[in-house]
């Protein structure tokens, strides 16, 4: 195989190969987050904005670092990362630290880590690897479908037990999309949807905690609890709605300045955008996310191997699901599940995981011409 020096020749060559449009859009989105956190804390620079900027820069550095590391390394890491994350999740189950009634954290002396966040990436890697190694004729056979479902189900059940509905959703949904994109027959997908239609009510009955059910009910009928859970969503809608088309102006959101919307530095930060910049600001922000997703999917389409395609699509799907779930929640279209707006909401773990994911996408792109062997997976 002929290789050009500029493609693989050293670090400079690799940096040259990065599709810089993607980091630029990511950086812009992150900066929007810095500005909105600054506004939500009423202009106190070190009450979140500064930390967010630091994390953004550190995360972008990590992203570039991941991008320049040979993609075959990441390819090889797919199953080990998955198994390690699974072990960490079991560790949480056994040794975990409880915060606000949910056992999500693992204390490793230096810092607390949230294995469920790492699992979001690991599950995508494992599934991509699974279909990469699978002979094409077996994709729609029981091995192809059930194998993938098991890879999804193991972490999903562990995360649900913590309990963390949002993350469970963010593990299952991208996983199912990978199955879909891998080429499983429509017939099987159709029967799967029917099965889900039966399973969801059962899940509601037996799989959810009381407070999670309560959230769904409050969402469906806000008058149930005017000062409790739906206070959140009511104030959130007031903030968005009062922004109108053009918004009240930067730092001029009264709902934000007077603390009417709780958590508006984290999960409800979109209310700050909507109140200050109105409908136009909201659409602008969605355009940024769409741009990021579009670039990722164009990269995916250009990939020559199954692993890269599915991994990129899976990571993109995870990223966009964050956005959809968060926006649906904040605009009152979905129950409050506690999913942040990636790159914009204050919070370190999500930022790190999302940027690491983009690092993987960039790495796949940089090393798009290297060969990935098939059928050398752990399981087959």
């Amino acid at each position, binding site marked *: 195989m002929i290789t050009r020096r500029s493609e693989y020749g050293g670090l400079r060559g690799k940096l040259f190969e990065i599709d810089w449009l993607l980091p630029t859009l990511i950086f812009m989105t992150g900066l929007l987050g810095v500005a909105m956190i600054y506004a939500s804390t009423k202009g106190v620079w070190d009450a979140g904005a500064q930390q967010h900027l630091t994390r953004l820069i550190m995360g972008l550095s990590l992203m570039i670092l991941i991008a320049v590391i040979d993609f075959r390394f990441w390819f090889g890491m797919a199953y080990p990362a998955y198994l390690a994350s699974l072990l960490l999740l079991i560790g949480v189950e056994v040794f975990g630290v409880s915060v606000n009634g949910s056992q999500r954290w693992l204390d490793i002396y230096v810092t607390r880590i949230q294995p469920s966040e790492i699992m979001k990436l690991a599950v995508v890697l494992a599934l991509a690897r699974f279909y990469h190694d699978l002979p094409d004729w077996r994709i729609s056979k029981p091995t192809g479908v059930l194998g993938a479902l098991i890879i999804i189900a193991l972490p999903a059940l562990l995360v649900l037990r913590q309990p963390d509905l949002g993350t469970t959703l963010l593990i299952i949904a991208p996983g199912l999309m990978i199955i879909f994109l891998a080429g499983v027959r429509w017939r099987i997908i159709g029967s799967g949807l029917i099965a889900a239609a039966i399973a969801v009510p059962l899940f509601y009955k037996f799989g959810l905690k009381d407070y999670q059910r309560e959230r769904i009910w409050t969402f469906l009928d806000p008058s149930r609890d005017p000062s409790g859970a739906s206070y959140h969503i009511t104030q959130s809608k007031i903030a*968005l*709605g009062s922004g109108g088309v053009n918004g009240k102006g930067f730092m001029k959101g009264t*709902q934000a*300045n*007077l603390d009417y919307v709780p958590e508006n530095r984290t999960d409800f930060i979109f209310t700050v955008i909507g109140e200050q910049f109105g409908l136009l600001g*909201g659409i602008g922000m*969605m355009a940024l996310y769409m741009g990021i997703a579009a670039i990722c999917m164009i990269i995916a389409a250009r990939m020559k191997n199954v692993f890269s395609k599915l991994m990129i699509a899976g990571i993109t799907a995870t990223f966009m699901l964050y956005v959809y779930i968060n926006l649906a929640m904040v*605009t009152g279209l979905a129950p409050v599940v506690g999913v942040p707006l990636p790159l914009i909401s204050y919070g370190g773990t999500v930022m790190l995981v999302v940027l690491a994911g983009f690092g993987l996408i960039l790495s796949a792109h940089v090393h798009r011409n290297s060969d990935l062997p098939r059928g050398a997976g752990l399981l087959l």
Partner: protein
Amino acid sequence: MSDREKLNKEFSRRALVLGGGGMTLFGIIGARLHNLQVVHGQDYRTLSENNQFNFQIIVPDRGRIIDRNGFALATNRMDYRLMIVPERIENIDLTLRHLSTFLDIGERQSQRIQRDIKRNRGFVPVLIEDHLTWEQFAALNLNLPDLPGVIPQSGQTRQYPPDGEFSHILGYVGKPGPKALEEDDNPLLRQPTFQIGKTGVEAVVDKRLRGERGRLKVEVNALGRIVREFPNESDAARPGEDVYLTIDSKLQTQTAKAFGEESGGAVVMDVQTGELRVLLSMPTFDANLFVSGLTQADMDRMNADEKRPQFNKVIGGGYPPASTFKMVVAMAGLENGLINPNESVFCKGKVQLGPRTFHCWKRRGHGRMDMRNAVKHSCDSYFYTMAERIGIDRIKQMGLRMGLGQTFDIGIEGQSPGLLPDDEWKRNHLNDAWRTGDSFNASIGQGFVLATPLQLAVMAARLANGKYAVTPHLIVGGGVPDFDLLKVNPEHLGHMQSAMYAVCEEPGGTAYRPNSMGFEGVKMAGKTGTGQVKGISAAERAVRVRRNEELPWKFRDHSIFVGYAPFDNPRFAASCIVEHGGSGARKAADMVRGMLRSALASDGYETRANLTEDM
């Protein structure tokens, strides 16, 4: 096309499907935003402004209560207090526990707080505690960031003179009770710190003192904390009116001091206008305690006191008027032509009525007594004799004309009408006919007759005035009322006044004191009384009448005196009852003399006396 290529094509196709799905989701969210921000934008803007702005009720300053010389008796002072807005607090118990590290919240208090929270809607602030010290207030202000929904506030509260000599007149303020809240829908009453008059003048003229509420537009954050204020001149609160009393606070205070530890009541009244310059009931209480919330210990102490500090004796206490009632009997006799002032009765120390013996206070007897001397020496035998002749009905009639047996329109509550008994009363209440013996007892102001210190002062004022049936008043306003004519024969009145003069100014009079007024040319007139509390049994009398000082306080006689001055141009009438004051009427007589002297001094009499001396 290889399988792999086919699959790649399939991937792209399916990715497009997902991408389309993603766009659709953005479309739905965009439509939702359009719905919220454009279609309902105005509604949400209104809601956002409702969040942002609030109107606060401004409690007006309560009007002051001021004495005749301009001394403010009931005033307002700064008070620091703490409130919570229940709907802004997630866990009220936790917040209360947190607050109790700064202040002492008792069991009863936390029950009251819980009740207030339940009774009001969530946004109505509930009072946690008022009358905080500045240190507590400052400490709380520092800790505010940890205490959402907690609002420290400074405002006005009522303050009264600490010694309490005006407590019975002024009354006190307090939080409106359920009844007041039901009757009055004024939003001011729902303000946690607002107080209404509960008793006394505070209650009578409450509406005048209240003032009118103002309002203030404020910007409020989600924790209920005010971020910005938008004051507007036309929305300011209008303070309540000041209310003036006829009371002379200096004289009232002086009188209270003279009472010392004694119990009873004293009145000084303007003979011409009926203005009350002193209206004192002793002992008294500190009304400030009622404003800040009475502790059980305070309450127990007050209830246990046998001198009953809370009881307004000067208008509500019915006492046997004793010998001060003799003027009523004498006037009844004169006016009905049944007494000739020159006619004498021989007092041999007792009068026999059938089997019963009625004793004169002087066991050896006074000898020959005409009307003037009978009053001067307070001879009981003379009045026993006259009472039999006049009869209780005529005595009662005269009593009513002199102001006994009735209440007056002085505003404050708690007046007792006293009692002027007659045959009908006795039949109704004791199921027995009126007997001559009852008239004997009544003639010396004992038995069933009861009068309040206020009524006795009115009696003295009417005897001094002579022309008008003066009535007392307390609250300034409405000018001098038109009094009814007294309609007594001036000649008879002259006899009466002369006899009362003899009591005070002639040697041998029961209250004689040389140069009693202390001013050149100013004389006084009056009458003593010794109200018997415990009947003297025949057995006791046989041994010897026990001296008063030997009796327990509760059984000692009441010391009573009524009088007026100056004799020739009456200005003030006064009365005083010292409960169980013992030793005859001296105590009360000294009190009245002192009050009259001070009242005249403050009216400029001293100056006039000095001038006389200089010339």
